[in-house]
């Protein structure tokens, strides 16, 4: 008893609590809490639109305005060649996945801080918060996709049959999004400055990624390496190829992008698990 009273005493090392990595258990846990994910997502959707006058309209108006700005600046001033595809359509197909990615990563990375009142009081697998944040952005993206339909109507064209490749591209994009969101959501709790850093990176990414311009502006021999560093470039190019140009994805670009995305997903999960244990101590 007396040695316990000494504040320098530590527990024996074999007793140290370890947060074990167990993908199967974590996935099962997450699935078991799907109702909670839905409730959280519903809450955020309702909270963000309830108090705004225009409601769900914002999910559509914001990307439309961005495309308008892109059209004026890049098309008219930057003289970007999109072949026979109307520029607004070209830009919008790039903008949709990009805005899903950025808004997911930025709102998902703040989700643990935002929900600290809950996770300090009730137990639940912490993944539910970033996952719910991504779900909210997914709903917004689905709404914004409606605008794509309007653009197709306006230009009198339709998505090509090769659009069946889209789910593959979505998988690659999701792996990247979830991985980054998981890593940042926990890291931000410890080092709040990361949120600002992340905001800056995402802002630059909009111009470094072929959202407003096409991947053909990158010299051919650099493209694969470029897509390995910025997987979204390959994903966005893929969307354009399958939806607008009627071609299969460029595998020489998509495969390195998919590899990077998987690495990010695994690393993100690992970082999340390692950092998650101490969140209640500092949040």
């Amino acid at each position: 008893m007396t040695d316990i009273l000494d504040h320098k005493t530590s527990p024996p090392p074999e007793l140290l609590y370890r947060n074990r990595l167990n993908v199967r258990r974590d996935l099962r846990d997450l699935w078991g809490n799907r109702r909670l994910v839905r409730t959280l997502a519903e809450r955020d959707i309702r909270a963000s639109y309830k108090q705004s006058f225009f409601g769900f309209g914002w999910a559509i108006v914001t990307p439309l305005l961005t495309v308008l700005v892109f059209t004026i600046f890049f098309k008219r001033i930057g003289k970007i060649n999109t072949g026979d595809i109307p520029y607004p359509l070209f830009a919008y197909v790039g903008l949709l996945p990009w805005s899903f990615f950025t808004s997911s990563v930025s709102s998902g990375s703040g989700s643990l801080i935002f929900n600290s009142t809950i996770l300090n009081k009730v137990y639940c697998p912490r993944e539910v918060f970033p996952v719910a944040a991504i779900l909210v952005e997914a709903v917004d993206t689905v709404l914004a996709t409606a605008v794509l339909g309007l653009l197709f109507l306006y230009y009198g064209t339709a998505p090509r049959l090769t659009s069946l490749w889209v789910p593959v591209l979505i998988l690659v994009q999701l792996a990247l999004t979830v991985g980054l969101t998981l890593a940042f959501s926990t890291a931000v709790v410890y080092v709040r400055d990361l949120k600002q850093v992340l905001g800056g990176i995402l802002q630059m990414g909009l111009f470094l990624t072929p959202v407003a311009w096409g991947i053909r502006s990158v010299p051919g021999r650099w493209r694969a390496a470029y897509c390995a560093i910025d997987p979204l470039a390959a994903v966005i190019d893929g969307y354009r190829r399958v939806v607008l140009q009627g071609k299969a994805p460029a595998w020489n670009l998509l495969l390195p992008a998919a590899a990077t995305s998987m690495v990010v997903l695994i690393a993100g999960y690992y970082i999340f698990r390692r950092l998650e244990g101490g969140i209640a101590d500092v949040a």
Partner: protein
Amino acid sequence: MSPEAAGLAHGTIRADHIWKRFRSDARRWSVSTQLNYWKARRQSGDEDFWRWALRDIGVHIEPGEAVGLVGPNGSGKSTLLKILSRVMHPYAGRVAVSGRVGALIEVKAGIHNELSGRENIYLYGSLLGLSRREVAQRFDQIIAFSELDDAIDRQVKFYSSGMQMRLGFSVAAHLDPDILLVDEVLAVGDASFQQRCHDRMREVLNQGTTLVLVSHDLAAVEATCNRCLLLVDGLLRGDGPIRDVLGEYREWIEEMAAGRQTVEAIVPLLKAIADDGERGSPRTDGPLEVRLVLDSAEAQKAMLFIGVSEGPATPIFVIRRNMTLASGESELVCRVRHMPLPRGRFHVWVGIYDASWRELLPWHPATFFDVIGNRLMKAPRGIVRLSPVQVTADWDESRR
């Protein structure tokens, strides 16, 4: 349910060798502190940067048990509760908690400010793993208990702290948890709501729920729980039947108070304990026993006064004893057979004077006790009660 809990009956808590530490340096994330930390860690170990909040705690709780958790401020009660509710990971040790855990750990339990009370109830329900339908079935019950009918569609950020606590407790206690963890938050509620919370806790206990209650209101703990844990400075100092542990705790408070005693006296008071004579809390109209140990340099005639007050120096009643102090240490026991006080905390004041009213021991608060019993009956509107009480007592003197 924690993965280790497989095979345990719902409502079981198994915690072994729990250690928890927190960083003690304030500016944790400034770069210079962090550099110092890494340097120290490489050279001499990082112990100076940490403060132990819990040390080697082992607690096993069976389904349906009602366990009180007492201890002074900062002793680690809330930390232990957070670890049991799996909100916090321990630094070392094994925790297995089986079943659904309803926790009211801070005033705003599981509550989201931007949402209305109604949405919060559903949110909390899904945190506990209940479906919307299951929550809907209990919804009216929750509203009725929390008395928030008009406010339920208002955003929670506009609630008073009492309202937030009422919502939090009602939700936690009505969503059929297997384990109910309640931290010292009930104090925010008014007296009648506190009473109903304790009634509800007993109800939930009768349904077989496990209860862990943290409180400084020892009488409330004693009335609700049958087992008690005493935490002092992160160590488990007591675990056993409620009366024994509360007795230990009171003695511990006494020792602490004695250590801090600054009353200058000719006849020092070494020890003062007030209870029901069997180390329990006195009950209204039951016995009250005050035991004093005095140290007098010489045998002398003296007048001893014991006063009971709600805190201030003006007592509700005073008991006087003309006596002869023995030289050396002597114990004095004062028994009140029918103590006429309602529920609450009362302080025992003691003073000793000689025949010419010279102060041998100045009038000062020596200890306190918590009464189990009914609340004070209300006086008519606008009538101020002075509480004049006549008390008879038996006395016992013995040399030590």
